[in-house]
């Protein structure tokens, strides 16, 4: 016995998610454009503009900044310029957000095809496969960018107990592998759909 399927409810859910994805995509594009702008502003700023003396900044770090980086120091000494912060935060932020925009863009088009009642289209298989590759690449690239960013920011700082360990993001890698399997399931769905269409 097959499980009853409420098509109307399903299509309403897909339509709602599609609209939500569109909104998120626009927000991520705005965020991406802002980071690119920060990067460009950083490039044209003079190196000696707004240089922060860290000895005068009363900030205490003693926590994991990301999964890979731990800063632990009570007294920093050194200088960091606004240019350095803007260039590297802008560049690495833009790469991270480009990944998010790409995934959201693919998801939006997948949902669009599902809404048009062609879920197992070749385009959808291609989109999900590409998204799985993007997640697998991001599982290595994004942690690497985090490490590089903090390395650039902190290389002028002296004395901190600074620990930086690089490791891939297991969550992204797992998501990528699951998506790859899902793409294969969609490819098989497409094959079954094709056989069904050729039956009279």
């Amino acid at each position, binding site marked *: 016995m097959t499980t009853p399927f409420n098509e109307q409810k399903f299509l309403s859910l897909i339509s709602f998610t599609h609209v939500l994805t569109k909104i998120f995509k626009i927000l991520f594009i705005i965020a991406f454009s802002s980071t690119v702008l920060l990067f460009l502003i950083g490039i044209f700023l003079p190196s000696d503009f707004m240089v922060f003396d860290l000895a005068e900044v009363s900030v205490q770090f003693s926590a994991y900044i990301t999964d890979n980086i731990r800063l632990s120091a009570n007294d920093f000494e050194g200088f960091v310029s606004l240019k350095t912060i803007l260039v590297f935060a802008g560049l690495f932020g833009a790469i991270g957000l480009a990944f998010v925009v790409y995934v959201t863009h693919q998801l939006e088009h997948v949902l669009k095809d599902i809404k048009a009642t062609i879920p197992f289209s070749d385009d959808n298989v291609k989109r999900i496969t590409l998204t799985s590759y993007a997640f697998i690449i991001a599982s290595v690239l994004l942690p690497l960018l985090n490490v590089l960013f903090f390395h650039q920011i902190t290389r002028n700082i002296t004395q901190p107990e600074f620990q930086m360990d690089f490791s891939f993001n297991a969550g992204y890698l797992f998501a990528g592998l699951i998506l790859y399997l899902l793409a294969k399931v969609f490819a098989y769905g497409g094959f079954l759909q094709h*056989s069904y269409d*050729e*039956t*009279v």
Partner: protein
Amino acid sequence: MAIIIRLDRVLADRKMQLSELAEKVDISIVNLSNLKTGKVKAIRFSTLEAICKALECQPGDLLEYDNE
């Protein structure tokens, strides 16, 4: 494909047009045309039954196995 559809022959014997059969069995003329030209992969028992009923024939009159 080894299975050949002889719908055109049965239609000619009955002096019936494809459009007339499409109307009788309630299947689109496009699907029947695909069936006639062997462009389909499978045929449902319900479709075969409807065609046999409309043409007053047996499934064996419509389907033929070609060994070569």
